[in-house]
């Protein structure tokens, strides 16, 4: 049976992501088994993949690379087999070329860009923490049915600087535009936490579980 692999590499939001995926699946009737796993073979054969992540870029990258074969298995599934992939927060940032939090850390290089500290306008605190509105730039299947003026929960000090604006599916305004959702081919990623964004976030997860990229 088809299954979604939720990658377990020690990320703090793993359980919240699991609960939200299960709730979204049952609310939307998505026929999708969810396996929480760190097993490279399970990831290689998965039909969908969700990569959570929270905290430091370098720590997350290190934690993921400490699991034997995991990064290669992700590449085989997401790039070679083109299965639908959803990265959350640092899980999304890892899709970039590199992270610049406490030195330079290579990412997966799936999406061209760097993850750099938010340059805040005067009077705007960092971390960017709280609910902010989404400006949608793509009519993407994962972003359907979010309602009028959708708001989601952000908590981050670093953000993705994309090389190609064609990869930008949604942004948010924090003095300047901040990358909120990236999308290319079979991949999506959110800087915010859908698992903490009440109905809007659950709807995105439900959309993802039904998504068949062409």
């Amino acid at each position, binding site marked *: 049976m088809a299954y979604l692999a939720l990658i377990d590499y020690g990320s703090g939001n793993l359980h919240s992501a699991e609960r939200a995926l299960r709730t979204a699946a049952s609310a939307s009737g998505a026929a999708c088994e969810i396996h929480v796993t760190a097993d490279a073979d399970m990831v290689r054969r998965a039909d969908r993949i969700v990569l959570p992540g929270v905290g430091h870029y370098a720590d997350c990258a290190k934690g993921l690379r400490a699991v034997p074969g995991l990064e290669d298995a992700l590449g085989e599934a997401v790039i070679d087999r083109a299965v639908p992939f959803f990265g959350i927060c640092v899980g999304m940032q890892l899709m970039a070329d590199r992270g610049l939090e406490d030195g330079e850390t290579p990412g997966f290089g799936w999406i061209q860009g760097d993850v750099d500290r938010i340059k805040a306008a005067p009077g705007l605190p960092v971390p960017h923490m709280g*609910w902010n509105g989404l400006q949608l730039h793509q009519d993407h299947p994962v972003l359907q049915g979010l309602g009028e003026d959708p708001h989601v*929960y952000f908590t981050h000090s670093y953000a993705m600087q994309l090389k190609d604006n064609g990869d930008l599916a949604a942004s948010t305004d924090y003095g300047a535009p901040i990358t909120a959702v990236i999308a290319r081919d079979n991949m999506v990623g959110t800087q915010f936490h859908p698992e903490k964004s009440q109905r809007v976030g659950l709807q995105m997860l439900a959309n993802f579980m039904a998504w068949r990229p062409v």
Partner: protein
Amino acid sequence: MLKTRIIPCLDVKDGRTVKGVNFVDLRDAGDPVALAKIYDEQGADELCFLDITASHEGRGTMLDVVSRTAEQCFMPLTVGGGVRSAANLVELLRAGADKVAINSAAVANPGVISECAAKAGSQAVVVAIDARKSGDSWEIFTHGGRKPTGINAVEFAAEVERRGAGEILLTSMDKDGTKSGYDIPLLKAIRAAVDIPIVASGGAGKASDLAPAVLEGGANAVLAASIFHFGEVSLADARAALAAAGAPVRPFEPQKVK
């Protein structure tokens, strides 16, 4: 534009809410999970649990409350009370908290702040500062506001930011329980000292008290307990009052996932 967060706060002892709670249609007002669910449905932007359990055994109970809440409420959850170490923080985050508030331990040993930030990232580390006016400045109190420390609150706020705190939960001991509005001069003084988000706490008595904390005091979020628990102010009232005064709030309409 980032919106002002409205945060109901629940005091929890041995797994039960302690401050009086008076909700119509709620069979067990002592159950923090049931209350959390109501606030979730009403569109709270975040929830805060303060664990005032004294005993060691109570900690496990709190983890269970956090875990059961996170199973049903898909919103940010801050948990504070009795957090002494990065290990305490990690177990609360694993249970489903998104942020952990450190109070007495951060004052006794500020190094714990950097330890926690290194372990889980600044965004997960809140330092709760309880301050009381003392002459021309504000002094920090710990142990639920009982113990004076002689530490200047404004200087301490700058220090916790340097050490990696991602947010300050600022409670005015002078205003707490008075229902006379938030402590605007205190908020302004801390705002001038730090660039991280500030949650205003202590003194909310009516919906119109919320906006000055944001617009004058520079707070990024407003926390309140009794006005919400007793139904004096609904979350919809709070949103409307903030919006009317010019503080941006999140549009909220209950809808189901399709």
